């Protein structure tokens, strides 16, 4: 029964929402939105579960002086410090969401502006460095696929340059020749020869027709983004959409039960 009841509720709720999708008349038309509102309200209450888990976990670590307990102390200080800031602002203004608290040290919005926002910004800024390191690993021309990826990425970058298309393309040509020679040296003659020939060809073409290179670079970039890139993305999206539908039907019909525990 512990497993059957949730399956029945899931089936009834799922079928009901699917049926109401086709009925615009109230109260059916807005039922899906209303259910999402109910979910949000329930979700608000479940935050208490999260806070309970957080406090228990970190107080235990601090109490037992477990490894890295100091970080747990900082977490607890952050949690209760923000709570205190909210209560103080509330007591003063009647609401914790008072904008005047922005300029008061220890005010709720002060904590948000001077602690939360910079920390979030710092984490987001790290992304730039991670993109560079991931790109370096992904674009190393070790295989044919990685080389294609590398060439496509550089062409897209060149196509988006506002100036310096010719020197940038020449750098690409030199890189291709260097990669080709490297492949030749490690006994991959065909791959190496193709890369080197591509590099030489590209270099000669750019030097011979620099104006055409400047004109064509944005067009090549546009074609790469709108044809192969869009085709691949749409392929993934179609797969994801069908997968989502299949998974939803499996859940509604009770075929997929991994989300329900029987313990």
């Amino acid at each position: 029964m512990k497993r059957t009841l949730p399956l029945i509720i899931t089936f009834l709720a799922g079928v009901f929402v699917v049926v109401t999708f086709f009925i615009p008349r109230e109260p059916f038309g807005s039922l899906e939105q209303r259910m999402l509102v109910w979910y949000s309200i329930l979700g608000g209450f479940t935050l208490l579960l999260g806070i309970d888990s957080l406090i228990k976990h970190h107080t235990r670590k601090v109490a037992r002086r477990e490894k890295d307990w100091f970080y747990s102390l900082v977490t607890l200080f952050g949690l209760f410090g923000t709570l205190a800031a909210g209560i103080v602002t509330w007591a003063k203004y009647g609401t914790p969401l008072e904008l005047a608290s922005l300029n008061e040290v220890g005010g709720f919005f002060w904590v948000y502006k001077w602690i939360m926002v910079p920390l979030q910004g710092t984490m987001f800024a790290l992304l730039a460095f991670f993109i560079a390191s991931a790109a370096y690993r992904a674009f190393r021309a070790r295989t044919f696929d990685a080389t294609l990826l590398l060439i496509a990425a550089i062409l897209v970058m060149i196509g988006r340059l506002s100036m310096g298309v010719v020197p940038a393309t020449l750098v690409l040509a030199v890189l291709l020749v260097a990669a080709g020679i490297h492949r030749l040296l490690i006994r991959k003659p065909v791959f190496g020869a193709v890369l080197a020939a591509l590099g030489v060809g590209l270099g000669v073409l750019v030097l011979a027709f620099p104006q055409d290179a400047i004109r064509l670079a944005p067009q090549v970039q546009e074609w790469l983004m709108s044809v192969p890139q869009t085709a691949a993305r749409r392929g993934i999206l179609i797969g994801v959409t069908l997968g989502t539908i299949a998974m939803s039907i499996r859940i509604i019909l009770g075929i997929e039960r991994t989300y329900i525990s029987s313990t």
Partner: protein
Amino acid sequence: MVLVYLTALLFAQPVSDANAATPVVLRPVENLRTQDTPNDAGQSIDLSWKLSPDSARVKRYEVYRAQSAKGPFEKIVEFLVPTTAYTDADTLLRNKKDYYYRVDVVGELESRASCEIAGPVQTKPEWFNTNRIPVLVFALVYGLLLILYIEFAKRDREMFVRRIAGLDAIDEAVGRSTEMGKPILFSFGIGYLTDVATLAALSILRRVARRAAEYETRILVPNYDPIVMTAAQETVKQAFSEAGRPDLYQEGDITFLTADQFGYAAGVNGIMLREKPGTVFLQGVFYAEALILAETAHSVGAIQIAGTNMATQLPFFIAACDYTLIGEELFAASAYLDRDPQLLGSLKSEDIAKLITVGLIVVVSVVGTIGAVLTSISGESGILRSLTEFFNSGFERLVSFLTTS
């Protein structure tokens, strides 16, 4: 000479003022039509009209509504640019009541012209949204395929499913962590339990947790959403029980971190740097934190198996992780890992639906191309013209069907 000029100026001025003071006579908008907005919940009326022949001199268009043809009319909206349609979805509208409409054009010096009053028109809620018939057709066909293939799968348990490297690597990855004496870290990203990707990730967590219990390896699951945390705790607990090691289950390893995106990324990064997991699973819904997590996992030397349905984050995972479950592969996880005939059947039906979709896209492309070629060579009449119209209208209907589905 000067006197003549001044006299002329004196007489000319009043004439000019008289011209400016005369309001410009405008012609009103034409053919005002009203109808209940189709396929809605009522309380909405569509209006359309043709622009005034003097539209170049019109400063604004005003739409008026009344509950009687005699008025009083109340202005409900005005447009400063030429407009030919408006949907009145005012919350004050009541179903099954008569409404009348009028559109005024206003020119220089507030000269205005009103069109003929349109109405009465009533709003009524619909029982069925006919715009969604293609969705219904698609759902019925897909449902039929699903039932058929589940039956096939029940008879033929050896149904072929192509190998998915990311899922094959799960046991190896758990084993690697065990050999290194390091924990496993599993992240759902910042999805909720309403996300299908999170539900699919739960089935992967179950498999990972079962293996972890068998190998007596610790599994850490930091969470962004408390509901997902509860589901993860239940899943891991059950997996440990199934493996016969409920004693190894530690609720404190499956914790809530924060409901803030970058706070969560910072928290998981911190856990990775402190605990140095041997294997990191990034399964579920990820946004900008995807690469931050994947690169940090790489920096601590963890083997990474990622999976998401977010097309924008997939390139990052492919670039940074050892294995990536691309979109639908994530949804296939439970069928692939459990080999349950019903799940395998649904997987097969998914493939057939994909084949039908691809077939439809090919048909639409061919019909569209033929229509475009015929348009360029056909004349005003004759069989070619009819064929062109046939293909072009077919193309439009197919595109409409596909996009609605």
